């Protein structure tokens, strides 16, 4: 039975990936960051099948010990502060954890488990303010916030450990991917959760930033399959993963509210305080390489994704246990 180590098991991607790998017969070791309040609600249903451990990406020796103890065959490095916008508030910490933390982990892998396959969770934030649209694996990187810069450093270190030290290390450059397990501070989840609250009379309005901001949004459950597929390839390579289609925040709202029989225009207020300097209009994936080499395609379309998220929020808000 192969062993997979997932760093960031508590997050959206970590929990879907754990379910997928358990289904494939893996022993799954889940790693969470120490010293941070972590909710295991995303993995509550599979908790008994997981081996849990915790650590600190600033602690090189601790990372080595973790690898030595569990001897993973596959390592999925999904642990990172995940919000580009919040990264301005703790720049050094983000650099130390998301950037240097990956370098420490790669070095620990090289020392302890050099035959393990390593997946680095890269992000479309690497492209930032992109020089071409859509973006593929050869598009130059232009990060524009400390999160993107730290992730870019982690990406290049992953490439270096592959090309120089010979690790099977890949970087998956994933565009926005959402799900009912998305954190509440992300715009998609904020919309579906608040829409459901409005439907139930628990909220009156939804304040958002620029409604015309566009994103390439996919379903997280599809994206974790691509992660796994990358580690099953004969050669380690980097891949861009996304739908190739963008939608606006307005379109997201329209679908979310209409799924509840509501008109978003009656509830959504555009609030300047949520406007961001960084416009992501140009971030669109060209995932042709993943399609051709991995046979990967997104299965859940935009409408189904929004619908799934709204219905989930409606259900948890009306369920007696979670109320």
């Amino acid at each position, binding site marked *: 039975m192969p062993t997979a180590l997932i760093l960031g098991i508590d997050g959206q991607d970590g929990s879907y990936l754990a379910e997928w790998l358990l289904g494939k017969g893996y022993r799954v070791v889940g790693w969470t960051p120490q010293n941070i309040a972590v909710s295991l609600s995303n993995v509550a249903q599979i908790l008994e099948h997981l081996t849990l451990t915790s650590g600190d990406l600033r602690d090189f020796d601790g990372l080595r010990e973790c690898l030595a103890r569990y001897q993973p065959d596959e390592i999925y490095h999904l642990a990172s502060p995940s919000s580009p916008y919040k990264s301005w508030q703790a720049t*050094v910490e983000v*650099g*130390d954890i998301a950037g240097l933390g990956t370098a420490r982990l790669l070095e620990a892998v090289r020392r302890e488990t050099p035959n393990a396959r390593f997946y680095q969770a890269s992000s479309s934030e690497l492209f930032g303010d992109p020089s071409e649209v859509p973006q593929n694996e050869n598009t130059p990187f232009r990060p524009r916030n*400390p999160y993107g810069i730290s992730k870019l450093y982690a990406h*290049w*270190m992953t490439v270096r450990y592959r090309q120089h030290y010979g690790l099977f290390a890949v970087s998956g450059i994933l565009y926005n991917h959402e799900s009912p397990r998305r954190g509440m501070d992300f715009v998609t989840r904020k919309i579906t959760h608040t829409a459901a609250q409005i439907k139930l009379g628990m909220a009156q309005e939804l304040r958002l930033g620029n409604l015309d901001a566009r994103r390439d949004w996919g379903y997280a459950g599809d994206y974790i399959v691509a992660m796994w597929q990358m580690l099953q390839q004969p050669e380690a390579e980097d891949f861009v993963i996304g739908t190739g289609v963008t939608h606006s925040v307005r379109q997201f709202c329209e679908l979310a509210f209409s799924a509840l029989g509501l008109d978003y225009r009656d509830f959504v207020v555009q609030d300047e305080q949520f406007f961001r300097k960084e416009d992501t209009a140009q971030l669109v994936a060209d995932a042709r390489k993943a399609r051709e080499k991995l046979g990967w395609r997104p299965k859940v379309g935009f409408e189904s994704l929004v619908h799934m998220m709204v219905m989930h929020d409606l259900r948890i808000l009306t369920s007696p246990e979670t109320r």
Partner: protein
Amino acid sequence: MKKALITGITGQDGSYLAELLLSKGYEVHGLIRRASTFNTSRIDHIYRDPHNGEQVKLYLHYGDMANTGHLVDLIYSLQPDEVYHLAAQSHVRVSFDMPEYTGDITGLGTLRLLEAIRKSGVKARFYQASSSEMFGSAPAPQNETTPFMPQSPYAAAKLFAYWITRNYRQGYGIFACNGILFNHESPRRGETFVTRKITRALASILAGKQNKLYLGNLEAKRDWGYAPDYVAAMWKMLQYDRPDDFVIGTGEAHSVREFLDEAFGYVGLDWHDYVEIDPRYFRPTEVDFLLADATKASRELDWQPRVYFKDLVRVMVDADMERMGLVPPGEGRRILEKHHGNWHRWEDQAVSMER
């Protein structure tokens, strides 16, 4: 009187920059690491130089690039007008043995310093020592719009620092500049760098103390300039009317083999009689061809190199010979007197070399 803070002041660039700024009347503060051994040989002569007057306005402070709080206090108490961040783990090959340390000092260290400037509220202008190594395998010639393809942990760390510098400029309005400097050498170059390794060994050979020189890849091509010219570019960037990024180089690329031709030829020797190839010195991922297109610096900063490849080799060979107690052919002194001679003088060369 302007006040400057230089990190990495004991290094090649830091020492030349300190000399330049002192000659311009700056009060210069240098940050040095607290360590059981540290080498101030490159700046010791500054205190003895009569050109600097009775009172040399050069002050050293212990500092730690790994501690943001300490840096905030230092910057707040000094209130510098200009900060030149030259401190780094600067050796490419060493970065393969110490990737995390390199990332911490070279990458995150820059972020700590920028964060310290921001937190202190001091309106200092900031210079980041970016490197042509960031271009890596990108096709030559490289300019400010060339996409980066870093090939070493050192280059990845420098690239992190480059983007963070741009970010703090754009996000916080700090006057922060990247000087993307191509290789720049001098008699003060550390002896593990190939140019200095060659001129030092050549002097030893001439003195009869050595008869073999072991080198790695002779075909790697670099754009080699003269460090004192490059520190002048750093200063110009911080005097410009807006913060920006600039490529600095000579626009000529030469191989290690050509460096050997020039150096040994200058003293009438054939390097083939002394040089042996040792694969251990091959870099793990070799960056093959770095060549600067410094058009922007020429146009906007009115910067040009004064010392090119052949003259650079002569300056370095002469200085290493003098240091070894030999009488050099002397072209190096003439070159400096012709092109510099003001703040940068021949007399300061041999005495300030790494021992």
